[in-house]
Structure formats: structure tokens, C-alpha cells
């Protein structure tokens, strides 16, 4: 099962929690100090994507399954 991954750039503080957990799915854009999803993030382990979403300190990560089910809803 694939998923769409989105980061709310206004809310992200670049803690790097998602990068530490899943470096194949996220990276830090140091010029802006925020995390961005990598190409191919949607193909990563769904459980880890969900965990990254739940661990985000600002609830900035939204993960939506390919059938439209919202697995992690960003808070904003």
C-alpha cells in the first residue's frame, strides 16, 4: 500500500525527528530549516511513515493512503 506524504511548511520547525526515523523519506532543507518529503517517500514502510507523523513535534506531517484514508492528519 502506498501513501501520499505532505508536510505543512508553516508549522514545521525542522526538529529532524522524521529524518532520524525515516531518512529514505525525509530530508532537512537547511536553507529554510524545515523538513521536506523525498521523492519516493510514498513507497516507504507505511508503519514508519505513520510513526514519523505521530512523532512530529508540531503535527506537521500528513499521511494519506492511496485509497484516500487519512492515516495521520496534520493538526492545521
Amino acid at each position, binding site marked *: 500500500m502506498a501513501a501520499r506524504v505532505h508536510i505543512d511548511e508553516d508549522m*514545521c*520547525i525542522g*526538529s529532524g525527528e522524521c529524518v*532520524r526515523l525515516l531518512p529514505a523519506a525525509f530530508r*532537512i532543507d537547511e536553507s529554510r*530549516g*524545515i523538513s521536506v518529503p523525498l521523492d519516493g517517500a510514498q513507497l516507504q514502510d507505511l508503519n514508519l511513515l505513520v510513526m514519523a507523523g505521530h512523532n512530529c*513535534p508540531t503535527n506537521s506531517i500528513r499521511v494519506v493512503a492511496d485509497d484516500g484514508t487519512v492515516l495521520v492528519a496534520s493538526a492545521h
Partner: protein
Amino acid sequence: MVATAEEGGSRDLLESYSATITFDTYETVREALFNPSLSRSFDKRSYGHGNIRDGVVSITHGPTHRARRRVENSQFRPDKLRLYERVLFPTVLGELLDVLIDGEFVDIFPIGELVSVVLAARRAGLDQDDRALDQLRTLVRFVDVFSQGSAILDARDPEAVRTLVYRTYEEFERGFVRPAWDRRAALIQAHRDGRLDASHLPNDILTVLLLHRDDPHIELDDDGRVVRETATYLQGGTHTSAQTLTNALDLMFEAGDRRPDVLGLVARDRGFAQRVVHETLRLRPTTPKIKRRAEADTEVAGVAIPRDALVVLDAVAGNRDPAVYGPTAHDFDPDRTLPASVPRWGLSFGAGAHQCPGRSVAGGFPVPSDLGTDDEHLFGLVALMIQAVAARGVLADPDHPPERDLRTARDTRWLHYPVRFGPRR
């Protein structure tokens, strides 16, 4: 000294509340920490009107806080953490302990402070001489004052703390921040003129603050705010580590009858040492009761919270919630089994946007559920500290009782902790 806002605004200094609401389970405390309507801004006055923490990242809220964290979090990336944990700290730790453990009986708490302050000062952006004990002791004295300032909501004599903090900021700025600032300003200018590559700029908080100071979103146009921000990182990087070292020893001494091997195991096994640190943080959070102010009407776990309410988050109770940590939640058990989603340190580093930026510095990376660690894993500086002290043969000193810090109601804090050193382990 108490100022109030004009019509329509929140009161600048919140001294009485529309309600006081306490949460004391793991899930409710965690939910509250993630709630964006709950802030740490109890005092919104200017520095000149009595707010000793005016503008520091810990009490900013919303867009300003996020912009500041984006800049400062760059100093907590894994590559920098590895440099500190694997290269810089082992040398500093060994050299200082050789000098400071100068007899059979010593007070371990100030030693923990001196060891911790070296790297905290470097990360903050100060240029002290790491081998000059007089400079390190001066920095520790500042940390002690700034720690009282950061806990002013729980101070027994807030006005005395305020006066002391004002005076100490001046001394800190004159003796340490200004020389470091001038050196960094010259380097940044050289970089902007094309004479210095960015890779040669210092890696520290003061440097990134000066680099980004023109960004209005981070609200650092006032020099005093830069000084206070630097002080915040110096204090935060020193105080928790020293207190946790001391609390870890206290818990291990208490556990001595049940686990006589615990200090030997710490000396031999860094993974176990890290789990001891996490268990210590869980049982003895340096901020036992986290406080928040409701900036607007909001709700946590179905409980309505009116604007200007005081929200008390009982971290001690949350960290011992049997629904999360099981029937042995009150016990000191570094080997406890937990699911990957539950932090071994509980809520002691906070959570949400204000989660402690230095969490991985002090505590390392989360321990995997199967306790296995790979080459990328970091154990945290406090694990290295307790391991070094355990290897040197630390023992309890029953003839000289430790002394808690009674200047604050935060009863997990120490002032003195005498220990004895026996044969090396």
C-alpha cells in the same frame, strides 16, 4: 512592576488565573503539550519591565517560536551530535575528571556541572578556555543563577531571583558574550565579503543567531535578547545533565540492595548506561510540574480550558502512569520492556513544539524496543558521564547526606551530593 495590557489584550503578567486545571496521566499530559493554544508565556512584559526571560525561545509562542527553532535546530543535527559525543566530550570528560576527582571523598554535583558546562558553552557560542577551571566555575555560577531564573514560576522568592538574574546577565555579557560576539561578527562579515567559506564559521547558537538576525520573524533585533538566548542554551545544556547525573547515582545507590551489580554494569555497558539515564529522567524529571497558559479557549482530552487558565501538567504522575509503563511504573528498572511508540524518558523532555532541543545531546537517540543499537546510534552525554564515574569506582557516602536545592519547589534538584570513590570497576 506588574504591568497589564490595554483593552482587549491578554494580561502581560499572569498572576491570577481564570481556572487552574491539572492533567496527570501520560496521554492527557502529552495531548496538552501538543496543544498550540497552550503557551509558556506567563510573562509578556518587556525586559525593562521585569521579564527576565523576555524573548528567549523557551517562552516565545507561535510563528516567532517556530522561526527561532528552525534556525537553532541546525545545531542539533546528527553530524554535530556525533562530533560532540564521539570526539569532543570523551576528551573533556577524561581530562576534567582526572583533575576534579582529587581524593576519596568529593561532591559529585558541582563536578557534573563543570563537566557539562564545557560543551554547553561551546554549543551556545562562548570561547572559554576549557582547561581554565576558574572560567568554568564562573560559567557554572551563571548557570546556577539562570536556572533559578528559568524556574521563577516555582521560586520561593521571585523578586530576589529577578534581581540576581539582572545583575548576572550584565556580567555574562561583559565577560563572555561580547568577546565571542565580536569574533563571530568579524567572521560573518568576512564570509559575506567572500573572504571566508561558510564551512569555516563556528558551529554554535550565537553564530546562527547573528547570521539570521536580519530576519524579522525571529525577533532578535534587541542585543539583550541575543545575550539571553545564549544564556538559555548555556543553562539548558548544563543544568539538566548535571541534575540527571546526580539523580542517576541516587537511584542506583537506592537500588544497591536489589541490584548490587548496577554500577558495574553501567561501567561495562554503554547501552545499559543510557537506559539508566532514560529511567532516571522518567522517574526524576527536572521539571516535575510543567506549566502552560491558555492563550485562547481550548480543550484537552475533552476538558474545556478557558483563556488565561493555568494548566498544570504533572510530569511525575504522567511518567509513572501504569496504563503506559505497567504495574512496575514506580520502580527503577532500566531494562523495562516498552513499545517503540513510548519514550523511555517519559515526558521529561516535553513534547510538541517546545520539546527540548537538546534531548538527543543529553539522552541520545531513542533505544530500540529490542535494545539493539547500530553504528549510527548515539547514547547521549549523560550516559558517558555516569559510565565514566562508575568506572572510576563511585560509591555512596553514607556519612555525608546529600543536600537538595530548596530555593525551588522542583524537588528533583540537588545542590550537593557527596560520594566516595573506591577501586576502579
